[in-house]
């Protein structure tokens, strides 16, 4: 049977088990849309902007672990998607992006809606392809999904010229597997390294586990929990790792880093053995590298060898899947005698008593932290929470105690404002039975507002929690601390009436100005099972995110709420505990 390129492409996507494609049509992809319309196995989500397509697919992928699929046209179609692709790349999210290209003979002629898609995306994808012949379609799609989902996952772009989508050929069988001599990601870690790590762990007196997004992407939460409980060590999680270990558990010290808890950062600072599991020593985690973990040895577990010894030199590097490595460590350490770390735990409990997330309420204003705490209560800690980027993101990370992996969806690496809303839509499509909340701010939400329209069309009811303080809060906070309160361009004048705006998109809007109205409004919103509800919550414009490690600081240089002085120079003699 002869099929055209577009039909072959759609057939390949079906065989890859694709459920949803997030996209936007245009000249170069019309044949593909025609083939998509002729079938009903794959549903298409028509976004309102291609960046929304990439974030939607990304939110879908983060929530259920399957690759997100995006379809955009040439030129502005693919350039609009670039921010979303880069967002997925920084957080290692599996994604396949199909972009139309001008017909092959026109490539390089500055044709209408032509851009060098593979050139533009090269530095923000795991890999990309430009298809040159119809016979390459099937093998390229197979390779793209293979590359996107294995090893350290990431986005893959397939650029396909229009003439190839209308050319015809006799269809061949879709390959079941693919072998690539140049791409063979390591899975199984070296046993020798596992043994060495087990020895170091058993003899450490002040150990700490530092788990990142690699535990979630690598589906290693079960093994991580078993391992952590078995060894009884304290565990801290990165912004990308939240939920991989239950944050309500007593061994959990919460998040670490720039806005991490006092106990997590101090424990890192005082540790003699830091075990990084699927985390990459990002600058927002380490702060000043010269002051980072002065007395620690490092065991670094990561599937990507290039992460090891990039920022911090690993004493025991272990390259492999987090799931497999943790299982091997469990097996290796079973029955092994460990050092008594009760002194270490009593020191940590002292730090915990500092209660670094405490904040003062003031009469007449709603504190943003209170909103997140109330959201946690009303949803019983079970909602999938997406966020945008800024202060609200940090408060959501600090005050919503995530107990499950894939429950917290945010743009950690690239820090993309506008991510939250389309990601919430993708999350709801992935998990229709779960409550999905999008915690956002008045700045971020306006970057992808148009997707409210998509959410009505495809009935993806989410609850938007807009922490409206009239400021680009994180920018304002930095200007307050480091620019002598010169608030350059961080004030949002002329905000829209978000309630009316939500209503004009066919959704429900509720404005909350008093704390007493907060709980009823949240309950009302979550009772609306089939509707998207926009909660516009007026919050204290002067509130700052604490604790905070200022730029150049180390983990023991933390600013805490309500204290003018930096809490630092902890006098604990770490070698004594």
């Amino acid at each position, binding site marked *: 049977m002869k099929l055209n390129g577009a039909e072959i492409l759609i057939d390949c996507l079906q065989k890859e088990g694709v459920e949803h494609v997030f996209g936007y049509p245009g000249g170069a992809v019309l044949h593909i849309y025609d083939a998509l319309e002729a079938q009903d196995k794959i549903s298409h989500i028509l976004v309102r902007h291609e960046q929304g397509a990439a974030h939607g697919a990304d939110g879908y992928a983060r929530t259920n672990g399957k690759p997100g699929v995006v379809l955009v046209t040439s030129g502005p179609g693919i350039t609009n998607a670039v921010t979303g692709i880069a967002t997925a790349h920084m957080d290692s999210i599996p994604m396949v992006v199909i972009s139309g290209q001008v017909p092959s003979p026109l490539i390089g002629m500055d044709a209408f809606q032509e851009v060098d898609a593979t050139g533009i995306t090269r530095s923000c994808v795991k890999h990309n392809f430009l298809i040159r012949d119809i016979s390459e379609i099937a093998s390229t799609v197979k390779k793209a999904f293979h590359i996107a989902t294995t090893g350290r996952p990431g986005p893959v772009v397939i650029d396909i010229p229009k003439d190839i989508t209308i050319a015809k050929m006799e269809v061949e069988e879709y390959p079941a597997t693919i072998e690539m*001599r*140049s791409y063979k990601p390591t899975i199984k870690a070296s046993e020798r390294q596992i043994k060495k790590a087990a020895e170091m762990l058993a003899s450490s007196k002040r150990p700490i586990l530092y788990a990142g997004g690699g535990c979630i992407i690598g589906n290693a939460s079960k093994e991580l929990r078993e391992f952590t409980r078995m060894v009884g060590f304290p565990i801290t999680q990165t912004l990308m790792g939240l939920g991989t270990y239950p944050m309500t558990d007593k061994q959990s010290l919460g998040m670490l880093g720039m806005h991490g808890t006092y106990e997590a950062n101090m424990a890192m600072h005082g540790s003699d053995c830091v075990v990084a599991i699927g985390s990459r020593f990002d600058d927002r985690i380490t702060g000043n590298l010269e002051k980072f973990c002065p007395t620690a040895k490092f065991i670094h577990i990561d599937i990507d*060898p290039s992460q*090891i010894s990039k920022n911090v030199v690993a004493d025991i590097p272990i390259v492999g899947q987090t799931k497999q490595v943790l299982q091997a460590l469990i097996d290796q350490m079973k029955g092994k005698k460990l050092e008594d770390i009760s002194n270490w735990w009593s020191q940590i409990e002292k730090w915990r008593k500092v209660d670094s997330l405490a904040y003062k309420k003031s009469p007449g204003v709603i504190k943003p932290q209170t909103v997140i705490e109330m959201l946690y209560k009303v949803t019983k800690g079970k909602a999938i929470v997406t966020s945008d980027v800024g202060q609200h993101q940090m408060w959501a990370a600090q005050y919503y105690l995530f107990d499950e992996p894939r429950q917290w969806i945010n743009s950690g690496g690239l820090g993309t404002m506008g991510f939250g809303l389309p990601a919430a839509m993708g999350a709801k499509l992935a998990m229709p039975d779960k409550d999905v909340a999008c915690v956002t701010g008045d700045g971020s939400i306006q970057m992808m507002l148009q997707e409210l329209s998509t959410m009505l069309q495809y009935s993806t009811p989410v609850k938007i929690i807009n922490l409206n303080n009239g400021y680009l809060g994180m920018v304002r906070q930095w200007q307050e601390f480091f620019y002598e309160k010169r608030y350059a361009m961080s004030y949002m004048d002329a905000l829209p009436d978000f309630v009316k705006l939500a209503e004009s998109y066919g959704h429900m809007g509720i404005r909350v100005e008093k704390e007493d109205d907060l709980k009823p409004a949240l309950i009302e919103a979550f009772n609306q099972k089939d509707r998207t509800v926009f909660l516009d919550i007026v919050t204290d414009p002067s509130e700052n995110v604490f604790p905070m490690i200022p730029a150049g600081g180390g983990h023991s240089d933390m600013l805490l709420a309500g204290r003018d002085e930096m809490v630092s120079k902890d006098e604990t003699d770490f070698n004594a505990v």
Partner: protein
Amino acid sequence: MRHIISVILENEAGALSRVAGLFTQRGFNIESLTVAITNDPSLSRMTIVSSGSDRVLEQIVKQLNKLIEVVKVSDLTSQDHVERELLLAKISSSSKEGANIKELVEIFGCKVVDVTDKVYTIEVSGKTKKINAFLDAFDPSSIIEISRTGVTGISRGKKLI
């Protein structure tokens, strides 16, 4: 420290720009880069001369390995190897050195490959140091134009990349 890195990669359109892009994207130093097809026509071989600390070099090798089209990466500097570079230089025959050009050609063991009434074109091959020494032997004003290939290298004996 100077390093010579050999890379075997798929002979595909775009592979070269991925490698070149990686070096600019991550701020790695690049002194020279040569690339051509190998005896297996589906593969290309690239030789990159770079410099940096051991940690930077470790990152360069790992990041190169991470590129999907790269099959193998090896640091030749750390092993027994042979390296060569080719220079084509046009020297003015009317200059001071032009007069004894034949003598210099003999000393450096190179070849005059083209002669016109005013210009000698000379081919020199050897280690980078030798090429530099050859060029240093002339007054800069007598050197009209040069073209260097950059270093290529291979390990010695039976050992393959």
